[in-house]
């Protein structure tokens, strides 16, 4: 990656890389790091929430009867698929 003209220059950014706005990590969508994408089979999902507990990125959303993946932040580590006791989650290669 190189020079991005659209971003502010060194004179107009806070010194030392300090971020003045708390919680700004939410703006950093890490989902595009993903090589494999977890797909939840909502018919198989028993809503046991093991994936929700184990997900290191808190990228599992709880719904009423099953879970869904937040693809904005899911890095595709596959821990959820590994932990799922009913094999409701499969990892599928991302097509880019």
């Amino acid at each position, binding site marked *: 990656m190189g020079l991005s003209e659209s971003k502010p220059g060194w004179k107009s950014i806070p010194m030392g*890389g*300090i971020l003045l706005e708390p919680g700004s990590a939410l703006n950093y969508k890490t989902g595009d790091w993903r090589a494999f994408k977890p797909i939840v089979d909502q018919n198989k999902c028993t809503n046991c929430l093991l994936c929700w507990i184990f997900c290191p990125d808190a990228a599992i959303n709880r719904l009423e009867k099953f879970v869904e993946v937040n693809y904005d932040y899911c890095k595709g580590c596959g821990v959820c698929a590994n932990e799922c006791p009913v094999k409701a989650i499969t990892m599928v290669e991302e097509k880019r």
Partner: protein
Amino acid sequence: MSRLIGLTGNEAIAYAVKQSNVDVVAAYPITPQTIMVEAFSGYVHDGEVNTEFICVESEHSAMSACIGASLTGARVFTATSSQGLALMHEMLYIASGLRCPIVMGVANRALSAPINIHADHSDMMGSRDCGLIQIYGESAQEAYDWTIQAFKIAEDPKVLLPVSVNIDGWSISFSMEGVKVLEDDEVTKFLSTRKPVLTISSDRPITVGALCLTDYYFEMKRQQVEALKDSYSVIEDVTKEYEALTGERYGFIETYGVEDAEAGIVCLGSAAGTAKAVAKNLRSKGKKVAVIKPWFYRPFPMEDILKAVENLKALAVLDRACSFGAPYGALCSDITAALYQYGKDLKVFNGIYGLGGRDITPFDIEAIFNEALEVAKTELVKESLKFIGVRE
């Protein structure tokens, strides 16, 4: 009003820190700096200071604790030497990168291997590019005066960088001199309290040390370049203000005899004292020699050095650290770069001296002056990189 008291270089720095109302000191003892920390911990024990003294298990932790404390807006001091400074290395970049105005006393000492506890500048020259301001004192008096000024330079909102106050291990760190010290309230008035720009506080949360990749890292480094550049005017102001208070005149460099000299020596720290004594003796015999002692190595006092060498025909630059495989030692490389940039045709040679505490004697200095005078006369440098006082 100043008083004269007997202090070693280490004690002089500890005494200055005591008077500077420092909030936090985190340090680990290492020869030949130990007394800096030991003397200061004595002040803490005796209730003479209101400082949080953090005992840490290593220099890496010392600098880490200092960074954390500095980010809360505290005035912070640490001290180290040699292997300790080397162990601090990665945290030094973080201290400067996060713009922490930490003042650090360094009793310069050689680096292992082979293990050695005596003076040379290899430790601080190894940290050359860490983004620190580097000051070198020639005596305990200079160590005292610079330590107080260092806080004011470091904490200026235009600078906000760590500052190291260097003294040669043993020859300065352990030698006692009469040191003129200020009264406590004079130092308090001179420094006032630190006025931080951004601090870690629960009232106004900020994120420090966030990931900064290809899109912003370079800009942060560019800011640091500017901070070092901006420090020139701050240093000028601080030294003027200190002169008004004490009558002691400091600046970027000290010169002796440059006005009419043909040949000069440039060196940092205690060797400059020997060089000045030898120059005085030679000048009384009609030999036109000069001494240039940079107090600052970073920011590099380019303009002052160029002005000082204006009338010289030959210059011997003495480095107390070896840059293996390089054409010159670090100081000489910077000086020759400055001369080249300004198209100044001055004959220069570099002498590496005093590694591992090897003494540089008045006889050595006299020989260097004579060689520099010969170069001035013949306009011919026979040996551009010499090793002074080493056995063949």
